[in-house]
């Protein structure tokens, strides 16, 4: 009674927010509160907009409602059975209750049943701090041991060293299937069996392989699909007195890590550096530095390819009798050139389209460039034996774990990056060590690798790598630098659309570019490759800001906020383009002294993984 009275009082105080268009809303009641809702809205959304909490586990704004957890059930007047708020649309005059006896009973029973599917590993579970299940149990005072755990014997499927699906924790919500099949269109995960025996398993189809993007992990509500944790190894390295530990933070994590601490989406580089130092890292660098190296290498390669490609075309025209043979092209004249900083995309090419390997830029990715520079240039500068350096990069990505262990990346027998941890793993380490993240005083990254441009920052979002390369390519192509007019903003390649295209002019040559945002959109570009000269592909929606190792939750709304934060910071930086980064130019010219080392640190090669057996297909170090 008291709750109802309170609701009515509030109702009188606050005037209803009714949309101006009279015929464009539906009047409903939730728990006696009158609500004007948009006609196509679900009960769940209408309630949320009016601050009425309805719990749920299986829903995610990236996917269609599946309504299988049945925890969001509500009572609708006149209907005998309960309805799921996530899938039921509002109708005129609906009277809904989210707190009736019938609702409470069903909801609590379902939470209890779900709990018994999930074997709690709370003490070492990095999801514990924002575990939806524990939240629900606490909120509704659920007896979590009502039923005996039934999945003790389920398997744990590990995908390379990146992602795992632990069947003992799976609650059968099927979000991982939606992520892998509908969103990424990889179809690696399958549901095998029926009823209580059903199980998410990797496919047995040999023509399909995991790309390690981790979208299953970032969409799993209970941490059954998750990164293979390496924070334990990092903790060990941190206590090893013989080692000099170096942390490197990725562009996109600075805007998202605050979410893990309830601080919202904002740039928090200073606090991250402080936290890493407090965790015991001797030095902290920014992968942004590596990104500026990548931009310089990649922009240079683009210009070279375009030039060579044109020369070849001219040669061909001169000798008209010769039949053009595409196989005779040497790799560095192949167009379109395609980015390779996304390791999930690289794995995709190597397995599904090895014929595109010559199209991939030979430039290594930012984390590998950064780690490479630390273990060569910086070690030399500091007179440190690079073998004593342990590099740890903090990434928004699970596939970066796979990338870091690719054997062909070794420099003089050393791994450029020793360990990769995700945003979630770092947040967990911070929380575990009881560091008050929000109260940390800003610290700056260590010099001399501390400069970076705005174009490095936007590597974190779809279109960013393309824009960075374009910003610098024009400069590099221009012979008389003083007379050149450089464009900085390429807004056509920004945003969260699935495919973005435009034509830019560099040194009077028209370059047709395309940006693929989310691997699920790749087909239309692969079918039309000949229409482009330069293509960026990011496997995750939104690019790294929506990566599989990102802060939880990651939704379309949150991805947008992270993207905006990155572009806003880029805009306000004094240095926008990689070629302005004097420190990077210095490092690059240092490498020029030793062409073998230069090649080892800056460039890479790829493997055709299509017809390899399982072990060779991996070709990485397994920890």
């Amino acid at each position: 009674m008291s709750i109802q009275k309170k609701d009515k009082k509030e109702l009188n105080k606050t005037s209803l927010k009714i949309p101006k268009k009279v015929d464009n809303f539906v009047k409903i009641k939730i728990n006696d509160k009158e609500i004007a809702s948009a006609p196509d809205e679900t009960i769940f959304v209408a309630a949320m907009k009016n601050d009425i909490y309805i719990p749920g586990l299986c829903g995610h704004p990236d996917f269609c409602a599946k309504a299988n957890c049945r925890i969001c059930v509500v009572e609708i007047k006149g209907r005998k059975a309960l309805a799921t708020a996530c899938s039921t649309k509002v109708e005129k005059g609906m009277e809904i209750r989210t707190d009736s006896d019938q609702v409470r009973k069903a909801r609590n029973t379902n939470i209890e049943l779900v709990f018994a599917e999930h074997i709690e590993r709370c003490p070492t579970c990095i999801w514990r701090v924002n575990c939806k299940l524990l939240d629900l149990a606490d909120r509704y005072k659920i007896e979590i041991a009502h039923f005996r755990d039934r999945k003790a014997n389920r398997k744990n499927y590990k995908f390379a060293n990146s992602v795992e699906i632990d069947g003992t924790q799976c609650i059968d919500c099927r979000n991982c299937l939606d992520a892998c099949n509908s969103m990424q269109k990889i179809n690696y995960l399958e549901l095998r069996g029926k009823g209580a025996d059903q199980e998410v398993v990797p496919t047995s189809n040999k023509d399909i392989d995991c790309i390690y993007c981790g979208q299953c992990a970032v969409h799993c509500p209970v941490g059954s699909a998750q990164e293979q944790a390496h924070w334990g190894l990092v903790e060990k390295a941190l206590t090893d007195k013989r080692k000099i530990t170096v942390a490197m933070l990725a562009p996109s994590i600075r805007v998202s890590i605050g979410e893990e601490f309830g601080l919202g989406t904002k740039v928090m580089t200073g606090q991250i550096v402080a936290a890493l130092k407090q965790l015991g890292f001797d030095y902290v660098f920014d992968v942004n530095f590596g990104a500026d190296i990548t931009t310089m290498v990649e922009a240079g390669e683009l210009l070279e390819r375009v030039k060579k490609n044109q020369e070849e075309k001219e040669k061909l025209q001169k000798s008209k009798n010769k039949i053009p043979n595409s196989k005779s092209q040497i790799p560095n004249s192949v167009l379109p050139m395609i980015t390779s900083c996304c390791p999930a995309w690289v794995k995709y090419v190597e397995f599904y389209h090895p014929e595109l390997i010559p199209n991939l830029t030979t430039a290594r990715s930012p984390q590998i460039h950064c780690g490479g520079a630390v273990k060569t240039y910086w070690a030399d500068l500091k007179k440190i034996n690079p073998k004593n350096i342990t590099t740890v990069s903090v990434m928004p990505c699970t596939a970066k774990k796979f990338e870091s262990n690719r054997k062909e990346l070794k420099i003089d027998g050393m791994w450029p990056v020793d360990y990769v941890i995700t945003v979630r793993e770092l947040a967990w380490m911070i929380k575990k060590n009881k560091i008050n993240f929000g109260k940390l005083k800003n610290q700056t990254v260590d010099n001399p690798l501390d400069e970076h441009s705005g174009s490095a920052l936007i590597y974190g979002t779809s279109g960013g790598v393309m824009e960075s390369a374009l910003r610098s390519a024009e400069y590099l192509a221009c012979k008389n630098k003083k007379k050149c007019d450089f464009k900085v903003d390429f807004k056509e390649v920004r945003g969260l659309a699935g495919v973005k295209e435009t034509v830019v002019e560099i040194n009077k040559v028209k370059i047709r570019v395309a940006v693929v945002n989310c691997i699920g959109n790749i087909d239309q570009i692969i079918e039309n490759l000949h229409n482009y000269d330069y293509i960026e592909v990011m496997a995750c929606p939104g690019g790294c800001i929506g990566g599989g190792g990102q802060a939880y939750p990651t939704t379309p709304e949150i991805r947008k906020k992270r993207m905006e934060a990155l572009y806003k910071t880029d805009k306000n930086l004094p240095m926008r383009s990689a070629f302005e980064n004097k420190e990077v130019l210095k490092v690059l010219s240092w490498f020029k002294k030793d062409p073998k080392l230069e090649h080892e640190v800056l460039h890479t090669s790829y493997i055709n993984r299509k017809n390899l057996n399982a072990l060779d297909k991996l070709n990485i170090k397994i920890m």
Partner: protein
Amino acid sequence: MEIMARIKKFGLVGRGGGCYPVASKWDSVKKAAGEKKYVVCNGSEGEPGVEKDNYILANYSDKLIEGIRLALDYLRENGRVEVFGYIYLNDEFYKKYSKSLNEKIASLNLPISLFCKPHIGGYIGGEETSLLNAIEGRRIEPRLRPPYPNTFGLWGHPTIINNVETFYNVSLVNEEKFENKRFYTIRGDSLWTGVFDLPDSMSIEQVLKQTKNYPDFPFFVQVGGEGSGVVLNSDQLNMPASGCASITIYSVQKHQPIELLKKWVDFFSSESCGQCVPCREGTYRLKEIFYSGKINWTLVSELLSNLSDASLCGLGCAVPIPIASFIKNVAPLYGDQSLSLPEENRKMICECFG
């Protein structure tokens, strides 16, 4: 007179158990926008104890095909709409009847294909949206509704789905030979079991007496299938048998309550598609409890009411029907000790049967 007028005249309702008027269903599909429409005949009877599909396929397949043809013609609108038919059969029926059905369809030159439900489809594969998923090659389990098949059915096209007995009756309606009869399968502890064609208006008792199956020993019945059917005691047989499709006779002496409960819950837990929590987990836990030797009736009542309140599809909602109706109508015959069921829990369980 055209077919729709005849269907309306006789007031034909679907023979699937829901008794949905055939005229409304066909009409809504005709009115739904679309240049391609489907007619699906559901011949995948998965309910144990019901054998009428088999009976009609064996004896009246001409009439069945004629019923489907009438539906196709009704939707065709002089060729403006492309129409296709499917006869969806379970693997057993497919093996038995596909050859003769295909020959008949070919001789009439009708756009009808047969579809064999994979064995794994099981009971849930007969549910109408699961059936659509099966034909489309998806995982065989119910879809969320809305949208309903009449506007968004097979591959998103408006689709009429009726069962074998309904199409058979459509052809009778068309010939003006319709007498509102039903096929009843009678099984169980009796001698004269089989499939009988009897008037819709008869009571269960009359059906049993007419077929000489009314037992002279203490008994109870389950009507509407041996899975999800309602359990009634011998004093409750005056209600019309209409639409119940099957009557299974159980001798009180022969059957022990706990064994029956185990049988029902075994059936549902093995047939659950696994989509929603109340059914996947609920049937698993019910099975666990019934086999544990010591039944926690509070949990049972919670799980049963959750199944009827919160399941995603009809299968989940049906689980409490046999169990609760047995406890309500028949368990007292066995005496209070038989299930050692506390009165408070008994009340709760009976409530979820409505």
